């Protein structure tokens, strides 16, 4: 019940947009295609949707090649959103639902339920163009999931949404995951998808540069960092005086025990250590210097992992 992509390639003239991508997205999990703009994410998704013909490679859904019929099992939220603005909200949803194989009656029933859920029940008979941009985005999200697809593809799903709606969409994506849907998520905003994706591939110029779970990617990073904060520093005035800077430098110097690789002194001090045992020594030293308010291991963000991977590749 998985989506399997093997050796996918696509060029536009002399530009190689996708260059031999392989991955497998499984049910009940969110699979991320992450990368900068132009990395080949949207082209890959378009090939899966049959909108663009691949030059090479295979795409299989549940063990079979995707065709017109099986593509009806896909829900799609494109990056560049667009609805028929002249049509009414319900008409558009019923149209897209019937294209996916629903009867008009069933599509109407489901559209009404989803619109109520998103607080758009009263907008059912309004023209799409009269809705706010955020509400149009919600309608587009409904269009993607109306037919209860087994595979849902979200291309930059949070672009254009305000923070409240971002949370709403995240919640709905988690619901879909809980229902066992296979979810493919493409984004260049690492911060927005970090907590969502179970597995991911990092793309650069059409090629995969990293793959795995977020935890595995983090584990592969050989840098261990801790953040340290003393009570007196935390309670001190915000003003950064020369005396305060001198005190931070003094304490940082005291923390420089064997196994410490680097120290960034400040109100919050970041210490890079060789391993977690060295960190314990650092903590004990810190306690000897004052009451410690915070001592926590810093996990690299997805953004940092991405930047590090890009730097390594280039």
């Amino acid at each position, binding site marked *: 019940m998985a989506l399997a992509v093997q050796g996918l390639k696509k060029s536009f003239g002399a530009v190689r947009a996708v260059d031999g991508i392989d991955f497998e997205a499984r049910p009940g999990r969110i699979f991320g295609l992450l990368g900068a703009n132009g990395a080949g994410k949207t082209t890959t998704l*378009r090939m899966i*949707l*049959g*909108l*663009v*013909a691949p030059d090479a490679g295979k795409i299989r859904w549940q063990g079979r090649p995707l065709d*017109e*019929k099986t*593509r*009806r099992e*896909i829900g*799609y939220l*494109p990056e*560049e*959103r*667009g*609805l*028929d*603005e*002249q*049509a009414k909200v319900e*008409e558009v949803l019923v*149209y*897209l639902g*019937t*294209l*996916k194989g629903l009867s008009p009656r069933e599509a109407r029933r489901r559209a009404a339920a989803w619109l109520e859920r998103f607080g758009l029940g009263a907008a059912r008979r309004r023209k799409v163009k009269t809705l706010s941009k955020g509400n149009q985005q919600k309608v*587009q999200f409904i*269009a993607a999931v109306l037919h209860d697809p087994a595979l849902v593809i979200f291309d930059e799903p949070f672009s254009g949404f305000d923070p409240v709606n971002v949370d709403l969409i995240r919640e709905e994506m988690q619901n879909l995951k809980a229902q066992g849907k296979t979810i493919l998520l493409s984004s260049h905003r690492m911060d927005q998808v970090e907590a969502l994706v179970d597995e991911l591939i990092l793309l650069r110029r059409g090629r995969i540069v990293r793959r795995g779970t977020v935890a595995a990617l983090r584990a592969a990073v050989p840098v261990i960092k801790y953040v340290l904060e003393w009570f007196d520093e935390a309670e001190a005035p915000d003003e950064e005086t020369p005396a305060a800077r001198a005190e931070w430098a003094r304490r940082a110097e005291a923390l420089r025990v064997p196994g410490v690789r680097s120290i960034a002194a400040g109100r919050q001090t970041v210490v890079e250590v060789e391993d977690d045992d060295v960190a314990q020594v650092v903590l004990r030293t810190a306690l000897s210097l004052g009451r410690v308010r915070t001592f926590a291991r810093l996990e690299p963000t997805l953004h940092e992992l991405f930047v590090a991977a890009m730097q390594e590749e280039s």
Partner: protein
Amino acid sequence: MRGFGAVFRFSFSSKLKNPAYWASVGMIVGAVLFFTNLETIVRYFVDRQGETVIGIGGTPADVQAVLSLAGDPEMQAMLERMHVRLQATFGPAAEGGKAGRAPDAAGGRGPEAALEPAKAAGEAGVASGALDAYVEVRLYPSGRMTGTVLTKTGTNASLNERVTDVFQALQRRLAAERLGLGPEMVSALVDPPPFTYRTLQGGEEDAREQMGLAIGMTYVMVLLLYLFIVGGAGSLVMELIREKSSRFIELVLPSVSPLAYMWAKILAMLGVFVVQYAAAGLILYGVSRRGTVTLFGDSFDLSKMPLDLLGYALLLFVLGYLFYAAIFAAVGSMIARVEEANTATTPVTLLFVLAFIIAMWALRMPDASFVRVLSWLPPFTPLLLFVRIALGSVAGWEIAGIVGLLALSAAALLAFAGRLFRRMILSYEPWSWRRFWQAMRGEASV
């Protein structure tokens, strides 16, 4: 063709629900009624523009002669019909104490200076608007008239035409008098022979009346065919561009093949225009049942339109639309911006405009050899074959051949458009003829 039905239903019904669509039905009816009643409308305004006063100057004898001719009952009737009044114009004072008197040099033989006061008065009358025109007339023993016509501006062709008509009639009467010809002899000299035209096809009706009726109906049908095909194919392009530019098409195409999508759009637009023109036709039929619609000065009743002609019109509507829709669909698949639509479609539209212009000529010469040859060319067939069938003589085998050629061309173009459509419908690159050429040769695709 999975998804065809859903795309067709949505495209068809969303157009029909649009108030602008029904407003355009009203505009079609209005346009047809306007053009077919143009003469009546013009006459209505001419009848209400008031009397045309023409001042007449010249020697007293000449002026008197003209007024005397105008007093003839037949001439009076004509002047009344034309809303024209003739008025003698004399000057206020002439040199030598002849104030208010007409110059005594009669028959155009007197000195020119003697006419000056009348001329001045005529000019003043035209300038003040009391006279629409001032005519300084001179009569000759033969009955010939010469003269000078003075009007306020040189652009009033209608007034000049009216003055000419009046004086032509007066000259004819004067000449007839001088030559001693009776009304019948004058009529024999100037009127066309009063033939009754009959044809082998016609019944009891006058053939000329039939011809006028047929030309009128054909004109209306050619106009409707032109509007239908241009409007239908143009709407198709705009519909494609609208869905492409909004990216709505990307939601649709994963569930429906581009070919099914193209066919659904083409047939939905055809359905939309058939409904639109059927509605307009029904309204026009209703209007024509209440009274006749006039055209080219002939009266005809639209409800008398022969059914076989209506059938040919419908067949040519459909085939002509499919022919042009295939071209427009192929072009439209490569356009993603509304502003590029004109650049891309203008050459095709111009081709059809040319067909329309030729069809207008063909109304008066439907059997001309160039009309016969051009009617075989598919871009011209819908309009020219219709004119030939309606007004000319065209053999059954020829109709079948021309229609068959058009149908084959439309089918070939649709097949070709389908291939291009499949490759290019998701192309968002700027339009260029070079790229279109590459796409046609299979060298460009998404």
